[in-house]
């Protein structure tokens, strides 16, 4: 209960000590106190639901911690050994990395293409922008459920359409083979997120001053030169932001595979996060090993992001 009330209490405390109204503006100690009072709800949330869980996951990763029995004491480094020995561990790492590369390349490429396509104003382009953006209002789970029906052999419209056009013979199985399942999921992700990255890059494009393009045109640069020498370098910060977000999001992919493929066919589409979920709540029911896996993922993500930051910041330092 105390947690629920916490966001409500601080405001009155902030306005509490009315010692001397004139002095209040100048007194930095009072300002610091009031600052903390206003920041208290944020601090409380971060402490209870972020810092504490991180410490707890550290403790869990070195403890024998079955789902139902709770903490049964220190056992390091068993959990980490079991985590890496899990028969799906390396498969899931390889699959997650493959998926991340495919999704990132496609999403950033398409996002950039779409952003260039719709960047000028106009009614038709405005409509296009909205049409491409609408899917990103859907939740990832809703979108996955939608495509689950769309890809289904019973009610999906795509397979009959392709058959009617004579492009394929017999029904297409979108989720039946490992390759098909991967690419079907990638298509769903592109459909759901292309607008998101288009918008981010569009904001970046609009941040480029107009006179730069004007100057390039005066100097006789053609379209390709302008794109390669001006647009891309000046768009670098936006592209970096998109890449980091896309890599992070793809490495942590879960919803789409959980709903569309459940890790199948033949356990070929198990992502790392799905492995964590399976170890914790389905079958093995071992929170300790799941925590160890989470810890490995966290460490890997920090390393990957630091490397990305370094790689993308480097040329600016020159």
């Amino acid at each position, binding site marked *: 209960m105390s947690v629920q009330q916490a*966001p409500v209490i601080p*405001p009155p405390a902030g*306005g509490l000590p009315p010692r001397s109204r004139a002095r*209040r*503006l100048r007194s930095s100690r009072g*300002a*610091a106190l*009031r*600052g903390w009072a*206003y*920041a208290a*709800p*944020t601090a409380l*949330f*971060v402490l209870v*639901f*972020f810092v504490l*869980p*991180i410490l707890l996951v550290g403790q*869990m990763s070195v403890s024998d911690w079955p789902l139902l029995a*709770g903490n049964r004491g220190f056992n390091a480094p068993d959990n980490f050994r079991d985590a890496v020995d899990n028969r799906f561990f390396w498969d899931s790492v390889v699959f997650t990395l493959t998926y991340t590369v495919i999704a990132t390349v496609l999403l950033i490429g398409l996002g950039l293409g779409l952003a260039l*396509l719709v960047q000028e104003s106009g*009614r038709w382009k405005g409509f*296009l922008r*909205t*049409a*491409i*953006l*609408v*899917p990103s*209002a*859907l*939740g990832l*789970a*809703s979108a996955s*459920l*939608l495509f*689950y*029906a*769309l890809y*289904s052999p*019973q009610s999906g*419209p795509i397979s009959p359409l392709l058959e009617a056009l004579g492009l394929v013979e017999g029904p297409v199985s979108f989720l039946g083979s490992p390759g098909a399942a991967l690419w079907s999921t990638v298509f769903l992700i592109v459909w759901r997120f292309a607008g998101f990255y288009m*918008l*981010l890059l569009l904001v970046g494009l609009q941040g480029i001053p107009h006179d730069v393009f004007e100057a390039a045109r005066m100097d006789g640069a053609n379209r390709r030169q302008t794109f390669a020498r001006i647009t891309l370098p000046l768009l670098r*910060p*936006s592209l970096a932001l998109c890449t980091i977000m896309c890599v*992070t999001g793809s490495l*942590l992919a879960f919803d789409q595979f*959980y*709903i569309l493929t459940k890790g199948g066919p033949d356990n070929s589409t198990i992502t790392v*996060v799905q492995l964590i*979920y399976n170890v*914790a*709540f389905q079958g093995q029911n071992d*929170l300790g090993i799941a925590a160890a896996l*989470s810890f490995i*993922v*966290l460490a890997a*993500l920090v390393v990957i992001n630091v490397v990305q930051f370094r790689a993308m910041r480097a040329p600016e330092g020159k």
Partner: protein
Amino acid sequence: MTPAMTQTVTPQHETPASGPAQARPRRRAPQTRIAGLALRTPYWVFTGALAVVFLFPLVWAGVASVSPQPGSNQINGWGLGNYVTLAGYQAGVWQYVANSVVVSGLTVLFTLVVSLLGGYAFARFRFPGRNVLFLVVLAILMVPYATLLIPLYVLLNSLGLQNSLLGLALVLTMFQLPFATFMMRISFESVPRELDEAALVDGCSSFGALRRVLLPAVKPGLITVGLFAFLAAWNDFVAPLILITDSAKAPLPLAVANMRQQVMGVVDYGATQAGVVVLALPCVVLFLLLQRHYVQGFMTGALKG
């Protein structure tokens, strides 16, 4: 054949787009105009196809949910049979919609209150630990969902918030804080300091200045934060999957996903489509109404990059 088609097809697209500008092309030489149209045709076809690709799945889900198909409650003719199935599923769809509304409502409320006060603190006060706290809030973005949800599952149990919509809303609020706090800090910082200093000199308390003077000024920021919090909470799937084990307390996305595994392993796609429509409709409507604020959120988000 292609040029002939070009001439007949393109004017249809051209006329609605450029009403007043129409007079100008007439003056040009006819060849260039036809050549221009011929060049533009692939563009219209391509962009039109793009729009279809992005809109088709949504339209299809809506149409398919009311059209006849075998294996569902709507075998013959058009109708709302699939929605009847959905309404009758386990605790009833209204229960799940209510769960989602409660979770989304609480998440939006908590996010708005916490980020309003937090943004005010970060933008207007200097206090020890200010930068550290702000960085820790942003660090939430860096930590994988699953890394936090496993310990949160244990933590909520020990707080007595297991299986509770309140606990779920608190967790979802935490995940919203990086964006919300950042957004509100920017919003407050873009308001001229003289505004609230004048209010303080006139005898307002700092909370009074926030409520009377600053609140109206940061309203666009609050709408953006609220919209993002709602979309995230309404659509979230992983957090309830792990934190809510009582199926009567499942929010809508989880309930619709669970519904697929019912009835002797036979999936009722009709009911799934109906579920997707119920899930997607509020998001799409809100998005179309508040598109400006949605884009605004991206502008702010991109600034930090």
